[in-house]
């Protein structure tokens, strides 16, 4: 280190470190000379823990990886298990999964745009984003009982079907007319609420874009900052919106479709510049495309009732009512929740297009009821590793824009 350089510890308790990133920066004046991210402050050893849990017990851990888009994590994990088990997932469960994947994507991008704008000095966007996330939390709560860690996808399908009734606000403090206004879109089923939410969302995304897209300050902070050249993006390990912002039209939902993405109609936004601004534009357009997907799923789900979880009793538990009367069902239930199910020996890698990029789950089974090795490949771990290569030459304040637009969540970087 040169004596003219100044060493700065950025984080781990800095608000724009997005969690617990300790970034050791070497500065020449205000220009970054060297950046060394120190991670692992949130490391919980999830992969090791999973080796000591049955597959069903390991499922809630993946929720806690990227805790801003939980359902997409579960999807990858379930796909890997289903691949090893070679079981069919009912078509209705696949539509439900796609719908919740896309709601996760909206939820993730709303949090991302909010926090990123907050880092770069715009307060309002965070409040707008939090409002939309609140509606999705309500949907999750009505569907599976939990707001943030749903544990909703199960090997073989999803835990249960959507509820017939959307919970309503109740208050002894609000006036009746005020309450009726708040409950106006909660009169029908959960599906009705999702449809209403999805139809309103494009206007809400417009609101956010009005604040940012042509905002002079926002553009000064993001345009031309942190460019990932198209020819290097793949080798650097970019996936998801990071890769697409650099102009590579690569999306696993189109290229290697899983669930029912093949049957649905949507477009893949692609950027040109590969800078922070393009990443913002790509993510905003992805929100609109997610709305299209959600609406198609809502239409299909309304018209096609059916089972939502496999009827293979060795994998999926029997319905509650059946257990009350049938001995066989009771035994299946008991075995599933004490011993778990054995997964044939073998290995499988399943990847999904997570809101942040490619989330891969590699499972190695020796035929036991627990994974022998579970490997979770998270996109933001690789994205953060690019920081050491990209930050030098940028101003200190641009590092904030870089970290912000990488879309990093430490639950998934540290695992």
């Amino acid at each position, binding site marked *: 280190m040169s004596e003219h350089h100044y060493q700065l510890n950025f984080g781990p308790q800095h608000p724009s470190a997005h969690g617990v990133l300790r970034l050791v920066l070497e500065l020449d004046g205000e220009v970054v000379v060297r950046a060394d991210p120190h991670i692992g402050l949130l490391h919980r050893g999830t992969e*090791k823990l999973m080796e000591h849990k*049955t597959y069903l017990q390991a499922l809630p851990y993946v929720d806690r990886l990227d805790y801003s888009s939980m359902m997409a994590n579960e999807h990858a994990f379930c796909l890997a298990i289903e691949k090893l088990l*070679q079981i069919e997932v009912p078509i209705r469960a696949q539509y439900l999964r796609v719908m919740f994947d896309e709601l996760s994507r909206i939820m993730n991008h709303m949090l991302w745009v909010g926090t990123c704008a907050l880092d770069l000095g715009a307060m309002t966007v965070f409040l707008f984003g939090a409002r939309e996330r609140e509606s999705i939390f309500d949907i999750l709560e009505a569907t599976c009982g939990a707001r943030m860690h749903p544990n909703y996808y199960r090997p073989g399908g999803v835990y249960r079907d959507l509820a017939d009734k959307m919970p309503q606000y109740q208050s002894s403090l609000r006036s009746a007319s005020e309450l009726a206004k708040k409950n106006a879109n909660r009169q029908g089923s959960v599906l009705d609420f999702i449809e209403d939410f999805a139809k309103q969302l494009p206007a809400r995304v417009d609101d956010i874009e009005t604040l940012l897209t042509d905002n002079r300050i926002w553009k000064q902070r993001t345009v031309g900052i942190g460019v990932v050249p198209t020819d290097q993006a793949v*080798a650097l*390990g970019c996936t998801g919106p990071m890769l697409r912002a650099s102009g590579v039209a690569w999306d696993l939902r189109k290229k290697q479709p899983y669930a029912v993405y093949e049957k649905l109609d949507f477009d893949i936004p692609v950027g040109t510049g590969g800078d922070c601004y393009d990443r913002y534009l790509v993510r905003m357009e992805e929100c609109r495309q997610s709305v299209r997907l959600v609406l198609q799923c809502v239409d299909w789900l309304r018209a096609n009732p059916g089972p939502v979880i496999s009827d293979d009793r060795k994998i999926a538990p029997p319905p509650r009512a059946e257990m009350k009367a049938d001995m066989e069902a009771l035994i299946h239930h008991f075995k599933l929740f004490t*011993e778990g199910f054995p997964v044939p*020996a073998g290995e499988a890698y399943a990847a999904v297009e997570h809101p942040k990029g490619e989330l891969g789950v590699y499972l190695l089974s020796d035929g*036991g009821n627990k994974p*022998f090795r579970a490997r979770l490949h998270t996109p933001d771990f*690789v994205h953060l590793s690019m920081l050491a290569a990209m930050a030098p030459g940028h101003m200190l304040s641009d590092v904030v824009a870089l970290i912000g637009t990488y879309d990093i969540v430490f639950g998934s970087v540290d695992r």
Partner: protein
Amino acid sequence: MRPPLSQLKNVLVKMFGGANLTEAFQELTLEVPLAKLSATMRQLRDAADCSFDALADMTGVDYQGFTGRDPSAPRFAVVYHLLSTRHNWRLRVRAFIENEKEPAVPSMVPLWLSANWLERECFDMFGIVFDGHPDLRRILTDYDFTGYPFRKDFPLTGHVEMRYDPEQKKVIYEPVTIEPRDNVPRIVREPHYGDEKPMSLPPAETPR
């Protein structure tokens, strides 16, 4: 949309022979001796027929205690998941490491920049050394951590726990006090366990 798997299989058989190539669950696995790993990976990346331009994942595996595996077989392996965005196919490459005491593998950073942190993580968790890595340091574990947590002989509870000591007015490390426990034992059933099969009665005893 996606090219059939047989197409990639043909390419790989032509390049490396079919002996080390296995197919399962629509996925191909290529097993490579460690000595040939670097050359094979370079070939996989550069040959126009495969052009695996992305390293989707890289990880280590500790096979100690793997059911049905010869205990004298190599304990550690590195597993790479390659992706070609040009041909839209994937490949798993595995190399076993014969030297259990000092496992070492050539680094893939010269081929894929994204290998940098993945290899650091593998070094941190399994103690596998990557020859030629530009900056091989621990990454996820605590400063001054000892041991390799993802090895099978490393206990789930770890060796030390941390607490704030009001007398010394600092954070101190002590041996763990919690006892290791597994509420659900690890069970490996015989093949076809739970399959429905016709019930057979024991042979009737013949009167003497």
